[in-house]
């Protein structure tokens, strides 16, 4: 039996995988990919909720899907900017390892 919870748990697991990647990776592209996984987890959660609110009013029940559309849009925009930045940094330093890109102290 697939319930809303199945999707929510799936989202939570994905979110944590993405979180782990974002926290533990050193390559900027890998971190970006991990953040994309986190955003996908959020989207699954949102869409899951929105289909569970079938009994609710017309506007509210699709809110989650619309939110997901905005997240997808923004994620694509972020990816474009991030990759431009990564390439610019690589051009200058020949590395995109954020452990090595560390002129400044923490």
């Amino acid at each position, binding site marked *: 039996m697939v319930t809303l919870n199945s999707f929510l748990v799936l989202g939570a697991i994905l979110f944590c995988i993405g979180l782990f990647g974002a926290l533990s990776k050193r390559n900027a592209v890998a971190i970006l990919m991990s*953040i994309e996984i986190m955003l996908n987890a959020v989207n699954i959660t949102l869409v899951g909720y929105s289909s569970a609110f079938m009994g609710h009013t017309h506007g509210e029940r699709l809110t989650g899907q*619309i939110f997901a559309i905005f997240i997808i849009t*923004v994620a694509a925009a972020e990816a474009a900017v991030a990759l431009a930045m990564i390439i610019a940094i690589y051009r200058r330093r020949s590395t995109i390892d954020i452990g090595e890109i560390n*002129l400044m102290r923490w």
Partner: protein
Amino acid sequence: MLNTPFTYMPTGADWLRILPELIVFGAALLVLLADLFIPNGRKGWLAMVCLLGVIAALIGVGYLLSNGDSQTAFYGMISDDTLALFSDLLILFAVGIGLLYSPGYIERHAVTRIGEYYGLMLLAALGMMLMASATNLMLIFVGLEALSLSLYILCAIELTRFRSQEAGMKYFILSSFASAILLYGMAMLYGSTGTTSLSGVQAFFAPGRHPFLATSGYGPLLLAAMGLLGVGFCFKVSAIPFQAWTPDVYVGAPTSVTAFMSVGTKVAAFVALSRVFLLALGAQSDKWEPVFWIVAILTMLGGNLMAVVQRDVKRLLAYSSIANAGYMLVAIATNTQHAFSGLLIFLATYTVMNVGAFGIVLALERNDGQGTTLDDFAGLAKRRPGVAAAMAIILFALAGVPPSAGFVGKYYVFQAAIVGNHIDLAVIGILTSVLGMYYYLRVIWAMYFTEPRNVSGGAGAIAATTGMAGEDEGEPEPADAASGASVAPVRAGTATLARPVTSRRSANSRTVVATQAPAESAAPPLTLGTTVALTLAVVLTVALGLIPGPIVMLAEQAARLLGQ
């Protein structure tokens, strides 16, 4: 309902309520277009266009303050209540000052994309204004992304200075990471209440609306939602332990951008945070107040302690902005209407002081981004009395010495904390403020009571005093920035000719050096815009300290939202 005809059109009233945002957006588009037609030597005009846009938007805010209806527009997406207008005011002030700083900065540094720079400044301000005015989680998110994306790019816009790009990258990674966490929190809040509208969330928790809330306690779902939202917002306001990005980004970004974003993002994030937690989740305050209590204490202590050990004034100001976030969190943790107005007053005073302080840094730093260590400030009062006096006034204000703006802000926050039964927070706040006085006053001490030292940690002072050509080019290669400082005096004389010209920036600085080698100070004179902006910041810092009345009234009016 599926076949309902399209009956809704945004009315004129809807558009009127977002008038300031519309003006800023229009100005941004205008600048981006005008950039194509203005020849390279005259890009300064773009700053004028931007400033006119900002002034027009300020007039729009004024109009809404006197004639606005404090309603939401676009079906509850955005509001023109006094809180929104108050934050619009601060954000527009900050971006205006940042724009005044910009022409001078751009001229001295290798910013080649001038039109885009100005356009993005305005778009970032637009994002901030939207985030502060939003009354729906969705619009908070979209506004947040508009401002963040613009700021990543602005941080990285000095293409030939690597620190700038590193700042952009670091900001991007940590900020988009924080956005993802914030979003998950929003998704869970949506899941637990069924709506993304803040008033809807507030209504959901209204007493008696859902009896099961009172009996069964709260599901872990809501706790998780609040936790994730809190972490996301703490990243955005750079509260400890989520502050790691702040110093590097503030130091690495172009100083004119830092001046603007250090206050603009704080205003937007704190107002959005208050809207979500104080207003929408107000009925749940027993769940989140203790968390903010801890974060406030950590941030006040940590920010001030870390600031004490800093030798670089720009970095010191970055840590001081973390410490100030701690004082603002005191108001959040206190969670009364009184404290909320205190938070707004604090934000206002912080805005004028901080843009001023970063303006001084901008006036003093050399073209390579160096020249802001404490040693470089030594004896500044003799070399540049005007700048030193302005810095002294602003630092006294940041330290909270009465009767300055900083004192007013802290007074209202701590007084509200005491009234609101958070004497612990007030005591810690006052104690850390005293600690803060130490590092602010140390800079003043350096400016007024010490002589410029010959052996400098900043790779420059020695050459500056002996007039050695090539000093200004003595930026250590990025890779050895840390170790370069100690060897700089040794190699300053020989390195100039030996180093190949690797980038346009070093070529630029060569010509600068050639023209002003004999100058006793490496930093160039103030431009008109910087002078005007600094004067404005200093005058307002003093004025807010002496006559805080109007801003206090406005803040109290804005805070009334909480009492409704």
